[in-house]
């Protein structure tokens, strides 16, 4: 905590500086609000319009969380399966890569056609978005274990399961968290995209409406809300990472 406070002031300064430049620029060049609203206008709308987008926000958070949990669990699970069962890996690894190459935004409308307007197509979208970064990172992390430790485990007669849980999994954790961080950020975007597929509520809906009534200030509010949301998410994952890989942070402290 103290760490954040201590280190936090520099980036905060940079951000504040950026905002000041932006505010001054919009005033000096008299940029109309529909083109680029000034930060003060955006903040104004963000505060006064809270009641307007509050329920949209909750709905998006919920969708993001569910999608993220399903998507990453699925990604990790698939990575583990592929890693542990070479036959399956040979069969499906290329397909996983394929899966990522499916253009989600293109596919999304088709998903609705096939699965209707319920939760299912939305969750599929978020899952697809989260799935790839986490699956690829996890797989890479699992494969890059130290040969020395691997030799020990094999010689000691560790079963594949043991090699996995005691060596490969802890070794892959940093890599997995790398992927989780990326997925966390993308899942929010995935939720917004999936809301465009047809939803009654959500930041995605709020934004579409704002954009179609040329309320650029509201579009910015939704951009900031989305950013805030995914940042919060990112920080949560980082905190979890710190907790799970504390042996590493301990190491870094001492190697001063």
């Amino acid at each position, binding site marked *: 905590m103290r760490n954040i406070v201590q280190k936090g002031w520099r980036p905060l300064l940079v951000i504040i500086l950026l905002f000041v430049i932006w505010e001054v620029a919009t005033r000096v060049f008299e940029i109309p609000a529909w083109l680029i609203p000034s930060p003060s206008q955006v903040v104004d709308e963000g505060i006064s319009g809270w009641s307007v987008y509050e329920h949209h926000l909750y709905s998006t958070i919920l969708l993001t969380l569910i999608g993220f949990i399903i998507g990453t669990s699925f990604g990790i699970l698939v990575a583990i399966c592929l890693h542990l069962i070479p036959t399956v890996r040979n069969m499906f690894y290329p397909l996983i890569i394929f899966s990522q190459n499916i253009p989600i935004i293109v596919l999304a409308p088709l998903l609705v056609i096939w699965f209707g307007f319920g939760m299912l197509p939305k969750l599929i979208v978020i899952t697809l978005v989260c799935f790839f970064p986490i699956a690829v990172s996890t797989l890479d992390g699992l494969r890059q274990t130290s040969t020395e430790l691997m*030799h020990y485990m*094999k*010689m000691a*007669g560790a079963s594949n399961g043991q090699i996995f849980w*005691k060596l490969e999994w802890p070794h892959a954790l940093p890599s997995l968290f790398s992927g989780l961080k990326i997925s966390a950020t993308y899942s929010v975007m995935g939720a917004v995209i999936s809301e465009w597929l047809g939803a009654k509520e959500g930041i995605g809906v709020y934004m579409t409406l704002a954009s179609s009534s040329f309320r650029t200030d509201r579009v910015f509010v939704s951009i900031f809300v989305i950013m805030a949301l995914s940042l919060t998410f990112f920080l949560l994952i980082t905190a979890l990472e710190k907790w799970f890989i504390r042996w*590493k942070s*301990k190491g870094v402290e001492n*190697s001063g």
Partner: protein
Amino acid sequence: MAELSLTGIAKSFEDTRVLEGISFDVHDAEFVSILGPSGSGKSTIFNLIGGLYQPDEGDIKLDGESIAGKRGSISYMPQSPSLFPWRTLLDNVMLGSEIVGQQDREASLQMIEKAGLGGYENAYPHQLSGGMKQRAAFIRSLLSPQPLICLDEPFSALDEFTRLEMQKWLLSLWSEYKRSVLFVTHNIEEALFLSDRVMVLSDRPARVKKEFKIPFERPRDESLLLTEEFLEWKKAIYNELRMIT
């Protein structure tokens, strides 16, 4: 029971023959050492017994069953400590037995104490000195329950006293539990002090150049190291090794 026998083992890495026609036995409850020049193939023999590699020729039997390419039949201490950076000393030490499913926290803590690592139970490997890591790896292999222990230069990073301490401890454990031990070292005194038999390997490609049967009575004592007989044996092996290199 642990009767190990190697017959006609050969192994090459990328066209360089490392081992050639290696045959020897380790009888039940026997203590056998392997001496040989650096790079001759001692660790490779361990890797073959441990099933990490398949021998190109020959067979490896434990209690009459072939274990070539079969893993988990030995408790093993590698030449480099190979501790897991994310585990504390205690967790590292218990790993070998954990794999077999027989953890004993109490015994582990006692062993750690005995190896002079008391107080470091919760330290991570990077907080330990080289010798401390080696001792941790040594305890880890002792705590594994397999009847054949393979130790690859377990005491090379230890000062003379800690080393003697460890050797005596190893002997006492060995005489108590009667496990078979295969021991790689490059220290002739150590091999003599500990073993029933000493095998000397030739340079690449390695063969068993000569086998010495060590007649000293057991239990052995530090004082043995200073006896005339010991020094003569040492000279004999020394000369044998000198001829190789």
